[in-house]
């Protein structure tokens, strides 16, 4: 876990400010940005995976049962998955978080 920026002293930084924890941005939860939430009607879903393919945030994740579901930590609610679903299986609904 990286600590918050304001806690860093100059000694805590790597030489040249190199970041050696690949993918550490996972700590930053962009789910907060979301107003709309994708909700899948699994009776319509064919598990085609287009929602996963087109998600700019890699927030539509494959699940064990073969379906895909949003990762609420990162889904920004852009609505691409709902728009691109060929089977109209995904609806964007107001996110009452």
């Amino acid at each position, binding site marked *: 876990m990286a600590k918050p*920026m*304001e806690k*860093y*002293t*100059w*000694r*805590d*930084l*790597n*030489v*040249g*400010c*190199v*970041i*050696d924890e*690949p993918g550490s941005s996972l700590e930053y939860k962009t789910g907060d940005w979301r107003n709309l939430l994708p909700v899948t009607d699994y009776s319509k879903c064919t598990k085609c995976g287009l929602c996963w393919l087109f998600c700019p945030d890699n927030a539509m994740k494959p699940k064990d049962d073969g379906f895909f579901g949003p990762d609420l930590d990162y889904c920004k609610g852009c609505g691409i998955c709902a728009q691109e679903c060929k089977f109209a299986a995904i609806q964007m609904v107001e996110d009452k978080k």
Partner: protein
Amino acid sequence: MKKVGIEVSLAIAEAAKLARVEVVSAYPITPQTHIVEHLAELVADGELEAAYLNVESEHSALSACVGAAAAGARTFTSTSAQGLELMHEILFIASSLRLPIVMVLVNRALSAPLSIWGDHSDVMAARDCGWIMLFCENGQEAVDSVIMAYRIGEDRRVLLPVAVNIDGFTLSHVIEPVEFPDQELVDSFLPPYKPLFTLNPERPVTMGAYGMPEIYTEAKYAQEMAILNSKAVIKEVMEEFGKVFKRNYRVVETYNLENSELAFLALGSINENIKTAIDILKAKGTNVGLISLRLYRPFPSEELLEVLKNVKRLMVVERAMPQGATNSPLFNELSAFAFHNGLNIIMENYIAGLGGRDVDPQEFVNIALNPFKKDGKLNYKIIGVRE
């Protein structure tokens, strides 16, 4: 090891070869060209196993060095004047990313008017970019400095780029006797570059991230600590160089300074002319010394204080214009330095040798005997200007 007569530019290329540089990236500009031409020959003849990039600008020359150094290669570039200014943006980034690139800066005047000849207006405009800066007075120093520059820059306690300054034409294009160290000895002094972080898919790192206000100050402070702390390493490397190669260097050099209350201070090859003047003065019974900053960045404060302890009058000779400042760049810095250290020294600012103008040693004799007194608007005297 015997001395050979060689053009200093070619000698510098040979030094880069001895340092086993792996990526050379450069763009031609007078008076730097002979260095990179000779390196191109060495690569073409298979004498130096390196990638040679004929880039399309100096900006790209340094950018490619940054990329290559980040990927783990020992890199070399060289430029002058306008080329350095075109690189300017990347100078800061090379030092902030802590990449030990070595650049030989063949000092030349800045346009306009266009001048291919030597002075220090180029390096003075780039003096505060976070690079270690060395100045050389002769060909041997240039060769030795290139080898030392890699050892200094690549030291894990340093990791900074190093600029080796040599004067355009008056040093770069003259033939001098130079002693080249044996490759074996250089190899023992300068082991292969072992970078701390590299762009390697096996261990992905992010280089060149951006800093929000909460972290930028700490990032810059860390860099400042690195360049300040580098001085100890530079001195250590110079000392070891002396042991291995039997040529001794110090960060601040002096000439005839013992028992002298009067001293010149200057950078680079103009010091050879000043030394001639000092010899003339000595023959006439006037004792004058010379202080030469071989190391300019980090500023060698303690070492300078030490040599200034008996000096009462200091004549600072600079090859750059103030450009609207109170005085020329090095003089301003020395004034602040003297003030902060409570030095009671009369300091005079002389500007000479602009755009390749020759300075007769007699001029320095005259200065020493007739101190500059401010009588007009200027806080400095330009030697030989026709008013």
